């Protein structure tokens, strides 16, 4: 298992850089990962959806692009704008949770 230093803290990550222990995550760490992913600043909207993703993951529910749309936090269009490129992969990485294994 690999380790990575974010905001002065050593965290456990897998070979793709996803957290293996979501409890090691903090908001300061999220800001650092976001920069690596090309997102210069995390807004309140970013954090709102990150919190949704973390809660959903920690309660054992599957993550899908549809669940974002039905989250009541933001719609999918905004999600794509907030995390350009591959939004679900980027957002889960920043949220300190495993990469979703969902096809939808």
């Amino acid at each position, binding site marked *: 298992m690999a380790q990575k230093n974010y905001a002065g803290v050593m965290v456990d990550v897998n070979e793709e850089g996803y957290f293996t222990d979501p409890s090691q995550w903090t908001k300061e760490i999220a800001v650092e990962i976001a920069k690596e992913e090309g997102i210069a600043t995390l807004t309140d909207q970013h954090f709102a959806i990150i919190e949704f993703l973390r809660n959903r993951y920690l309660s054992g529910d*599957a993550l899908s692009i549809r669940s974002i749309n039905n989250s009541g936090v933001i719609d999918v269009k905004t999600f794509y704008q907030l995390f350009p490129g591959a939004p679900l992969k980027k957002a889960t990485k920043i949220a300190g949770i495993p990469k979703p294994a969902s096809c*939808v």
Partner: protein
Amino acid sequence: MEQKYPIKKVNIICAKGAIEDVYATLVMGNGAVMEGIETNIFFTFFGLDAIVKKRMDKLHTGVTGNPALRLPGGMRMPTLLGVVPGMEAFTSRMMKGQMEKLDIPPVSEFLDLITAGGGKIYACKLAMDMFKFKKEDLSEHVSGILTVGEFYEHAGGEGSQIIFT
């Protein structure tokens, strides 16, 4: 260093209108959008049903001539059963129920998700003429009606792939 050739763009053609044909297209298309790949989806012939407003959420799956179709419990469904009235509707309802459980959205909602992420949906001009559909019959998510030549123009570019589902 090993040279990588990532897929940068996909162009998916859907020519059939059964649930499984349309969903194969939509899942692959949406999956590409989610990966940040530029995505064009081209609906032609019976595939047009997936973007015709009145039909898109009422697709069926064929129950005759499908040797892979099984009854709940796993027993192979005898082809003759397929002609029992209501069997096609029943099977289609089962399929949709299963998909809902896996968070696979209805067709209209799937198109919302794909286009929200920047994916483009097109209709085939020849098939539109053949089935006598008008632009107004199509979902608002359709970006245009293309000829084959125009489709190839849209499909061009480095790292671009054409997929026929």
